[in-house]
Protein backbone atom coordinates (compact mmCIF):
# COMPACT_ATOMS: atom_id res chain seq x y z
CA UNK A 1 0.00 0.00 0.00
CA UNK A 2 1.43 3.32 -1.05
CA UNK A 3 1.01 6.60 0.71
CA UNK A 4 0.61 8.63 -2.46
CA UNK A 5 -1.93 6.69 -4.44
CA UNK A 6 -1.59 6.42 -8.14
CA UNK A 7 -4.49 7.82 -10.11
CA UNK A 8 -7.70 5.89 -9.78
CA UNK A 9 -9.20 5.16 -13.20
CA UNK A 10 -12.86 5.37 -14.11
CA UNK A 11 -12.83 1.62 -14.69
CA UNK A 12 -11.79 1.17 -11.10
CA UNK A 13 -14.66 3.34 -9.93
CA UNK A 14 -17.11 1.13 -11.81
CA UNK A 15 -15.43 -1.98 -10.47
CA UNK A 16 -15.66 -0.51 -6.97
CA UNK A 17 -19.40 0.11 -7.31
CA UNK A 18 -19.97 -3.36 -8.76
CA UNK A 19 -17.89 -5.20 -6.20
CA UNK A 20 -15.33 -6.26 -8.80
CA UNK A 21 -12.41 -4.32 -7.42
CA UNK A 22 -9.54 -6.43 -6.07
CA UNK A 23 -9.50 -6.13 -2.29
CA UNK A 24 -6.05 -4.54 -2.26
CA UNK A 25 -7.31 -1.53 -4.24
CA UNK A 26 -10.33 -0.76 -2.12
CA UNK A 27 -8.42 1.38 0.32
CA UNK A 28 -6.83 3.38 -2.47
CA UNK A 29 -10.18 4.00 -4.17
CA UNK A 30 -11.85 5.03 -0.93
CA UNK A 31 -9.03 7.44 -0.15
CA UNK A 32 -9.32 8.86 -3.65
CA UNK A 33 -13.08 9.37 -3.29
CA UNK A 34 -12.56 11.18 0.00
CA UNK A 35 -10.47 13.80 -1.77
CA UNK A 36 -12.22 13.90 -5.17
CA UNK A 37 -15.80 15.09 -4.70
CA UNK A 38 -16.66 14.87 -8.42
CA UNK A 39 -15.79 11.21 -8.51
CA UNK A 40 -17.54 10.65 -5.21
CA UNK A 41 -20.67 12.23 -6.69
CA UNK A 42 -20.42 9.98 -9.76
CA UNK A 43 -20.11 6.90 -7.61
CA UNK A 44 -23.09 8.00 -5.54
CA UNK A 45 -25.13 8.64 -8.69
CA UNK A 46 -24.28 5.22 -10.11
CA UNK A 47 -25.31 3.58 -6.87
CA UNK A 48 -28.57 5.40 -6.80
CA UNK A 49 -29.25 4.42 -10.44
CA UNK A 50 -28.73 0.80 -9.49
CA UNK A 51 -31.11 1.22 -6.56
CA UNK A 52 -33.75 2.75 -8.81
CA UNK A 53 -33.42 -0.07 -11.31
CA UNK A 54 -33.68 -2.73 -8.64
CA UNK A 55 -36.61 -0.98 -7.00
CA UNK A 56 -38.45 -0.71 -10.27
CA UNK A 57 -37.86 -4.16 -11.75
CA UNK A 58 -36.77 -6.37 -8.87
CA UNK A 59 -40.38 -7.20 -8.04
CA UNK A 60 -40.93 -8.95 -11.37
CA UNK A 61 -39.04 -11.93 -10.01
CA UNK A 62 -41.53 -12.37 -7.19
CA UNK A 63 -44.67 -12.27 -9.29
CA UNK A 64 -46.70 -15.41 -9.69
CA UNK A 65 -45.62 -17.33 -12.72
CA UNK A 66 -48.17 -17.32 -15.54
CA UNK A 67 -49.15 -20.79 -16.73
CA UNK A 68 -47.46 -20.33 -20.06
CA UNK A 69 -44.11 -20.10 -18.31
CA UNK A 70 -44.49 -23.31 -16.32
CA UNK A 71 -41.63 -25.48 -17.39
CA UNK A 72 -43.55 -28.74 -17.09
CA UNK A 73 -46.21 -27.46 -19.48
CA UNK A 74 -43.64 -26.23 -21.93
CA UNK A 75 -41.82 -29.54 -21.77
CA UNK A 76 -45.03 -31.49 -22.38
CA UNK A 77 -45.90 -29.33 -25.34
CA UNK A 78 -42.49 -30.00 -26.65
CA UNK A 79 -42.83 -33.76 -26.53
CA UNK A 80 -45.04 -33.91 -29.56
CA UNK A 81 -43.32 -31.10 -31.35
CA UNK A 82 -39.88 -32.57 -31.16
CA UNK A 83 -39.00 -34.14 -34.44
CA UNK A 84 -35.87 -35.97 -35.39
CA UNK A 85 -35.19 -33.17 -37.82
CA UNK A 86 -35.06 -30.50 -35.14
CA UNK A 87 -32.82 -32.64 -33.00
CA UNK A 88 -30.47 -33.22 -35.89
CA UNK A 89 -30.38 -29.54 -36.76
CA UNK A 90 -29.59 -28.51 -33.19
CA UNK A 91 -26.94 -31.19 -32.92
CA UNK A 92 -25.34 -30.09 -36.16
CA UNK A 93 -25.25 -26.51 -34.94
CA UNK A 94 -23.59 -27.53 -31.69
CA UNK A 95 -21.03 -29.65 -33.46
CA UNK A 96 -20.35 -26.70 -35.73
CA UNK A 97 -19.23 -24.53 -32.87
CA UNK A 98 -21.12 -24.72 -29.62
CA UNK A 99 -24.13 -22.73 -28.52
CA UNK A 100 -22.65 -19.45 -29.66
CA UNK A 101 -22.25 -20.87 -33.14
CA UNK A 102 -25.85 -21.86 -33.16
CA UNK A 103 -27.11 -18.42 -32.37
CA UNK A 104 -24.70 -16.83 -34.74
CA UNK A 105 -26.15 -19.02 -37.46
CA UNK A 106 -29.65 -17.97 -36.49
CA UNK A 107 -28.75 -14.34 -36.79
CA UNK A 108 -27.00 -14.84 -40.07
CA UNK A 109 -29.93 -16.73 -41.54
CA UNK A 110 -32.21 -13.88 -40.55
CA UNK A 111 -30.10 -11.13 -42.02
CA UNK A 112 -29.03 -12.74 -45.29
CA UNK A 113 -32.54 -12.08 -46.52
CA UNK A 114 -31.85 -8.37 -45.97
CA UNK A 115 -30.73 -8.25 -49.57
CA UNK A 116 -34.15 -9.27 -50.80
CA UNK A 117 -36.03 -7.03 -48.37
CA UNK A 118 -33.86 -4.01 -49.06
CA UNK A 119 -34.21 -4.41 -52.76
CA UNK A 120 -37.96 -4.93 -52.58
CA UNK A 121 -38.45 -1.92 -50.29
CA UNK A 122 -36.15 0.23 -52.37
CA UNK A 123 -38.02 -0.61 -55.56
CA UNK A 124 -41.35 0.09 -53.84
CA UNK A 125 -40.05 3.47 -52.73
CA UNK A 126 -38.71 4.13 -56.20
CA UNK A 127 -42.05 3.37 -57.85
CA UNK A 128 -43.92 5.41 -55.28
CA UNK A 129 -41.87 8.58 -55.43
CA UNK A 130 -40.53 8.63 -58.92
CA UNK A 131 -43.95 9.58 -60.29
CA UNK A 132 -44.43 12.30 -57.68
CA UNK A 133 -44.39 15.68 -59.30
CA UNK A 134 -44.81 18.16 -56.51
CA UNK A 135 -43.32 16.43 -53.49
CA UNK A 136 -40.81 13.83 -54.60
CA UNK A 137 -38.53 14.64 -51.66
CA UNK A 138 -38.73 16.09 -48.17
CA UNK A 139 -35.52 18.06 -48.32
CA UNK A 140 -34.28 19.55 -51.56
CA UNK A 141 -30.91 18.74 -53.06
CA UNK A 142 -29.51 22.20 -52.50
CA UNK A 143 -29.56 21.47 -48.76
CA UNK A 144 -27.01 18.71 -49.07
CA UNK A 145 -25.14 19.29 -45.76
CA UNK A 146 -28.42 19.27 -43.87
CA UNK A 147 -29.52 16.08 -45.62
CA UNK A 148 -26.27 14.37 -44.73
CA UNK A 149 -26.46 15.41 -41.11
CA UNK A 150 -30.13 14.64 -40.62
CA UNK A 151 -30.18 11.29 -42.36
CA UNK A 152 -26.88 10.10 -40.86
CA UNK A 153 -28.35 10.74 -37.46
CA UNK A 154 -31.58 8.94 -38.19
CA UNK A 155 -30.03 6.00 -40.00
CA UNK A 156 -27.48 5.67 -37.23
CA UNK A 157 -24.31 5.74 -39.29
CA UNK A 158 -22.68 8.18 -41.67
CA UNK A 159 -24.61 8.53 -44.89
CA UNK A 160 -22.86 9.76 -48.02
CA UNK A 161 -24.65 11.32 -50.92
CA UNK A 162 -22.76 10.62 -54.11
CA UNK A 163 -22.22 13.39 -56.65
CA UNK A 164 -23.46 12.06 -59.95
CA UNK A 165 -23.25 15.25 -61.99
CA UNK A 166 -20.70 13.61 -64.26
CA UNK A 167 -23.35 11.07 -65.16
CA UNK A 168 -25.68 13.94 -65.97
CA UNK A 169 -27.64 13.47 -62.76
CA UNK A 170 -28.68 16.24 -60.44
CA UNK A 171 -29.64 15.57 -56.84
CA UNK A 172 -33.35 16.31 -56.43
CA UNK A 173 -33.18 15.74 -52.69
CA UNK A 174 -33.88 13.15 -50.07
CA UNK A 175 -36.21 11.82 -47.48
CA UNK A 176 -36.38 9.48 -44.53
CA UNK A 177 -38.14 6.16 -45.02
CA UNK A 178 -38.83 3.07 -42.95
CA UNK A 179 -36.81 0.09 -44.12
CA UNK A 180 -36.14 -3.55 -43.32
CA UNK A 181 -33.81 -2.73 -40.44
CA UNK A 182 -35.04 0.69 -39.36
CA UNK A 183 -34.61 4.18 -40.70
CA UNK A 184 -33.30 4.41 -44.22
CA UNK A 185 -32.10 7.34 -46.28
CA UNK A 186 -33.63 7.82 -49.72
CA UNK A 187 -32.15 10.11 -52.36
CA UNK A 188 -33.50 10.99 -55.76
CA UNK A 189 -31.54 12.05 -58.81
CA UNK A 190 -32.83 13.30 -62.11
CA UNK A 191 -31.24 13.71 -65.53
CA UNK A 192 -31.94 16.34 -68.16
CA UNK A 193 -34.65 14.26 -69.79
CA UNK A 194 -36.50 13.75 -66.51
CA UNK A 195 -35.41 10.18 -65.88
CA UNK A 196 -35.18 9.53 -62.18
CA UNK A 197 -32.92 7.28 -60.18
CA UNK A 198 -33.06 6.68 -56.46
CA UNK A 199 -30.57 5.56 -53.89
CA UNK A 200 -31.80 3.81 -50.75
CA UNK A 201 -29.39 3.22 -47.84
CA UNK A 202 -29.87 1.60 -44.46
CA UNK A 203 -27.98 -0.38 -41.88
CA UNK A 204 -27.56 -4.11 -42.22
CA UNK A 205 -25.59 -6.92 -40.65
CA UNK A 206 -25.07 -8.53 -44.00
CA UNK A 207 -21.55 -9.07 -45.14
CA UNK A 208 -20.07 -6.80 -47.72
CA UNK A 209 -21.02 -7.62 -51.25
CA UNK A 210 -20.17 -6.32 -54.65
CA UNK A 211 -22.91 -4.97 -56.88
CA UNK A 212 -25.84 -7.31 -57.45
CA UNK A 213 -28.43 -6.76 -60.08
CA UNK A 214 -32.17 -7.31 -59.76
CA UNK A 215 -34.73 -6.52 -62.39
CA UNK A 216 -38.45 -5.89 -62.14
CA UNK A 217 -41.03 -5.11 -64.84
CA UNK A 218 -39.94 -1.68 -65.89
CA UNK A 219 -37.29 -0.91 -63.36
CA UNK A 220 -34.24 -2.49 -61.91
CA UNK A 221 -31.87 -2.15 -59.00
CA UNK A 222 -28.30 -2.66 -58.00
CA UNK A 223 -27.69 -3.73 -54.42
CA UNK A 224 -24.46 -3.71 -52.44
CA UNK A 225 -23.25 -3.63 -48.86
CA UNK A 226 -20.37 -1.55 -47.63
CA UNK A 227 -19.44 -1.42 -43.95
CA UNK A 228 -22.85 -2.37 -42.59
CA UNK A 229 -24.59 -0.04 -44.97
CA UNK A 230 -26.86 -1.61 -47.54
CA UNK A 231 -27.44 0.52 -50.62
CA UNK A 232 -29.86 0.02 -53.46
CA UNK A 233 -29.72 2.09 -56.59
CA UNK A 234 -32.97 1.87 -58.54
CA UNK A 235 -33.91 3.20 -61.92
CA UNK A 236 -35.34 2.35 -65.31
CA UNK A 237 -34.42 -1.13 -66.46
CA UNK A 238 -31.45 -0.30 -68.65
CA UNK A 239 -28.77 -2.44 -67.24
CA UNK A 240 -25.65 -0.77 -68.61
CA UNK A 241 -26.70 2.71 -67.68
CA UNK A 242 -27.82 1.64 -64.24
CA UNK A 243 -24.60 -0.23 -63.72
CA UNK A 244 -22.51 2.81 -64.58
CA UNK A 245 -24.45 4.95 -62.11
CA UNK A 246 -24.37 2.29 -59.41
CA UNK A 247 -20.63 1.91 -59.91
CA UNK A 248 -20.10 5.65 -59.55
CA UNK A 249 -22.25 5.76 -56.42
CA UNK A 250 -20.54 2.67 -55.02
CA UNK A 251 -17.09 4.22 -55.53
CA UNK A 252 -18.09 7.39 -53.74
CA UNK A 253 -19.88 5.72 -50.87
CA UNK A 254 -17.00 3.29 -50.36
CA UNK A 255 -15.83 4.16 -46.88
CA UNK A 256 -12.24 3.30 -47.64
CA UNK A 257 -11.94 6.03 -50.19
CA UNK A 258 -11.59 9.65 -49.16
CA UNK A 259 -14.83 11.36 -48.23
CA UNK A 260 -16.49 13.30 -50.95
CA UNK A 261 -19.75 15.09 -51.27
CA UNK A 262 -21.62 15.96 -48.10
Amino acid at each position, binding site marked *: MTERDPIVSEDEL*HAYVDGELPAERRGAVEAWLATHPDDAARVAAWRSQAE*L*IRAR*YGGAADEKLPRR*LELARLARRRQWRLTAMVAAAVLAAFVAGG*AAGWFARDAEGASSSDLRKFTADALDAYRLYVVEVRHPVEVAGDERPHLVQWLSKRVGSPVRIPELDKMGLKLVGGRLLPGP*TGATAFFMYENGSGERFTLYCGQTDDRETALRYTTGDHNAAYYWVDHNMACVLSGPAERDKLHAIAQAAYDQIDTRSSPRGG
Partner: protein
Amino acid sequence: MGEFRQQIESAIPALRRYARALTRDVEAADDIVQDTLVRALRSEHLFHGGDVRAWLYTILTNLNRNRLRGLSRRPVLAPIKDSDAVSGAPESGGRDIGRALDELAEEPRTALLLVVLEGLTYREVAEIQGVPIGTVMSRLARARMQIRSYLDGERPALRRVK
Protein backbone atom coordinates in the same frame (compact mmCIF):
# COMPACT_ATOMS: atom_id res chain seq x y z
CA MET B 1 -36.95 -33.66 -12.82
CA GLY B 2 -33.33 -33.71 -13.92
CA GLU B 3 -30.65 -31.28 -12.89
CA PHE B 4 -30.93 -29.40 -16.15
CA ARG B 5 -34.62 -28.68 -15.74
CA GLN B 6 -34.17 -27.76 -12.10
CA GLN B 7 -31.56 -25.23 -13.04
CA ILE B 8 -33.81 -23.78 -15.70
CA GLU B 9 -36.78 -23.69 -13.39
CA SER B 10 -34.90 -21.83 -10.69
CA ALA B 11 -33.71 -19.25 -13.20
CA ILE B 12 -37.19 -18.34 -14.46
CA PRO B 13 -37.96 -15.58 -11.92
CA ALA B 14 -34.65 -13.85 -12.65
CA LEU B 15 -35.20 -14.19 -16.38
CA ARG B 16 -38.59 -12.53 -16.04
CA ARG B 17 -37.06 -9.68 -14.08
CA TYR B 18 -34.32 -9.17 -16.64
CA ALA B 19 -36.74 -9.38 -19.56
CA ARG B 20 -39.11 -6.94 -17.89
CA ALA B 21 -36.39 -4.36 -17.51
CA LEU B 22 -35.13 -4.97 -21.04
CA THR B 23 -38.52 -4.63 -22.71
CA ARG B 24 -40.42 -2.55 -20.14
CA ASP B 25 -43.50 -4.46 -21.25
CA VAL B 26 -45.00 -7.29 -19.22
CA GLU B 27 -46.35 -9.30 -22.16
CA ALA B 28 -43.35 -8.85 -24.41
CA ALA B 29 -41.08 -9.82 -21.52
CA ASP B 30 -42.94 -13.05 -20.83
CA ASP B 31 -42.99 -13.81 -24.55
CA ILE B 32 -39.23 -13.67 -24.64
CA VAL B 33 -38.90 -15.72 -21.49
CA GLN B 34 -41.21 -18.36 -22.93
CA ASP B 35 -39.22 -18.42 -26.14
CA THR B 36 -36.01 -18.73 -24.15
CA LEU B 37 -37.35 -21.68 -22.19
CA VAL B 38 -38.57 -23.44 -25.31
CA ARG B 39 -35.17 -23.07 -26.92
CA ALA B 40 -33.42 -24.28 -23.81
CA LEU B 41 -35.62 -27.37 -23.56
CA ARG B 42 -34.92 -28.11 -27.17
CA SER B 43 -31.29 -28.69 -26.40
CA GLU B 44 -31.76 -30.54 -23.14
CA HIS B 45 -30.28 -33.72 -24.54
CA LEU B 46 -27.06 -31.85 -25.27
CA PHE B 47 -26.57 -30.71 -21.71
CA HIS B 48 -23.53 -32.12 -19.95
CA GLY B 49 -23.26 -29.82 -16.97
CA GLY B 50 -22.14 -26.22 -16.84
CA ASP B 51 -23.67 -22.87 -16.10
CA VAL B 52 -27.22 -23.05 -17.37
CA ARG B 53 -28.09 -19.63 -15.98
CA ALA B 54 -25.51 -17.70 -18.00
CA TRP B 55 -26.55 -19.63 -21.07
CA LEU B 56 -30.21 -18.72 -20.53
CA TYR B 57 -29.25 -15.06 -20.23
CA THR B 58 -27.39 -15.38 -23.50
CA ILE B 59 -30.42 -16.83 -25.28
CA LEU B 60 -32.69 -14.17 -23.85
CA THR B 61 -30.32 -11.36 -24.78
CA ASN B 62 -30.14 -12.63 -28.36
CA LEU B 63 -33.89 -13.04 -28.62
CA ASN B 64 -34.38 -9.50 -27.40
CA ARG B 65 -32.01 -8.20 -30.05
CA ASN B 66 -33.98 -10.06 -32.71
CA ARG B 67 -37.17 -8.62 -31.28
CA LEU B 68 -35.81 -5.09 -31.52
CA ARG B 69 -34.85 -5.69 -35.13
CA GLY B 70 -38.33 -6.99 -35.80
CA LEU B 71 -39.92 -4.01 -34.10
CA SER B 72 -38.09 -1.60 -36.31
CA ARG B 73 -39.54 -3.51 -39.24
CA ARG B 74 -43.21 -3.22 -38.47
CA PRO B 75 -45.42 -0.86 -36.56
CA VAL B 76 -46.48 -2.05 -33.15
CA LEU B 77 -49.86 -1.38 -31.69
CA ALA B 78 -49.44 -1.86 -28.01
CA PRO B 79 -51.77 -0.76 -25.27
CA ILE B 80 -50.31 1.89 -23.03
CA LYS B 81 -49.31 0.21 -19.84
CA ASP B 82 -49.50 1.86 -16.50
CA SER B 83 -47.55 -0.92 -14.84
CA ASP B 84 -44.46 1.26 -14.98
CA ALA B 85 -46.11 3.93 -12.98
CA VAL B 86 -47.24 1.73 -10.12
CA SER B 87 -44.02 -0.08 -9.38
CA GLY B 88 -41.87 2.95 -8.81
CA ALA B 89 -42.65 6.60 -8.56
CA PRO B 90 -41.27 8.65 -11.41
CA GLU B 91 -38.85 11.28 -10.26
CA SER B 92 -38.44 14.83 -11.39
CA GLY B 93 -41.38 15.27 -13.67
CA GLY B 94 -41.42 12.04 -15.63
CA ARG B 95 -37.65 11.68 -15.84
CA ASP B 96 -37.78 8.28 -14.31
CA ILE B 97 -35.37 5.41 -14.50
CA GLY B 98 -37.50 3.51 -17.00
CA ARG B 99 -37.39 6.32 -19.50
CA ALA B 100 -33.71 6.75 -18.85
CA LEU B 101 -33.18 3.08 -19.78
CA ASP B 102 -35.27 3.58 -22.90
CA GLU B 103 -32.87 6.26 -24.05
CA LEU B 104 -29.94 3.86 -24.04
CA ALA B 105 -28.73 1.84 -26.97
CA GLU B 106 -29.42 -1.85 -26.61
CA GLU B 107 -25.89 -2.96 -25.77
CA PRO B 108 -25.14 -0.54 -22.93
CA ARG B 109 -28.60 -1.18 -21.50
CA THR B 110 -28.08 -4.93 -21.61
CA ALA B 111 -24.67 -4.66 -19.96
CA LEU B 112 -25.95 -2.40 -17.21
CA LEU B 113 -28.98 -4.56 -16.43
CA LEU B 114 -26.95 -7.75 -16.32
CA VAL B 115 -24.57 -6.16 -13.84
CA VAL B 116 -26.81 -4.15 -11.55
CA LEU B 117 -30.08 -6.03 -11.75
CA GLU B 118 -28.89 -9.58 -12.29
CA GLY B 119 -25.65 -9.28 -10.36
CA LEU B 120 -23.52 -10.96 -13.00
CA THR B 121 -19.78 -10.47 -13.09
CA TYR B 122 -18.07 -8.49 -15.82
CA ARG B 123 -16.64 -11.73 -17.11
CA GLU B 124 -20.06 -13.35 -17.37
CA VAL B 125 -21.48 -10.32 -19.15
CA ALA B 126 -18.53 -10.35 -21.55
CA GLU B 127 -19.33 -13.96 -22.43
CA ILE B 128 -23.03 -13.25 -22.84
CA GLN B 129 -22.39 -10.28 -25.09
CA GLY B 130 -19.52 -11.98 -26.88
CA VAL B 131 -17.10 -9.09 -26.34
CA PRO B 132 -13.96 -8.46 -24.26
CA ILE B 133 -14.36 -7.26 -20.67
CA GLY B 134 -13.04 -3.83 -21.66
CA THR B 135 -15.98 -3.42 -24.02
CA VAL B 136 -18.40 -4.38 -21.27
CA MET B 137 -16.87 -1.73 -19.05
CA SER B 138 -17.11 0.97 -21.67
CA ARG B 139 -20.76 0.03 -22.30
CA LEU B 140 -21.38 0.23 -18.60
CA ALA B 141 -19.69 3.62 -18.41
CA ARG B 142 -21.72 4.92 -21.34
CA ALA B 143 -24.98 3.68 -19.83
CA ARG B 144 -24.26 5.24 -16.46
CA MET B 145 -23.17 8.53 -17.92
CA GLN B 146 -26.26 8.78 -20.12
CA ILE B 147 -28.65 7.86 -17.34
CA ARG B 148 -27.06 10.39 -15.07
CA SER B 149 -27.35 13.22 -17.53
CA TYR B 150 -30.90 12.16 -18.41
CA LEU B 151 -32.00 12.14 -14.78
CA ASP B 152 -30.23 15.43 -14.23
CA GLY B 153 -32.48 16.92 -16.84
CA GLU B 154 -30.36 17.03 -19.94
CA ARG B 155 -31.85 15.62 -23.07
CA PRO B 156 -28.97 14.27 -25.08
CA ALA B 157 -31.26 13.39 -27.99
CA LEU B 158 -32.33 16.98 -28.55
CA ARG B 159 -30.01 19.74 -29.51
CA ARG B 160 -30.59 23.18 -28.20
CA VAL B 161 -31.38 25.70 -30.89
CA LYS B 162 -30.13 29.20 -30.44
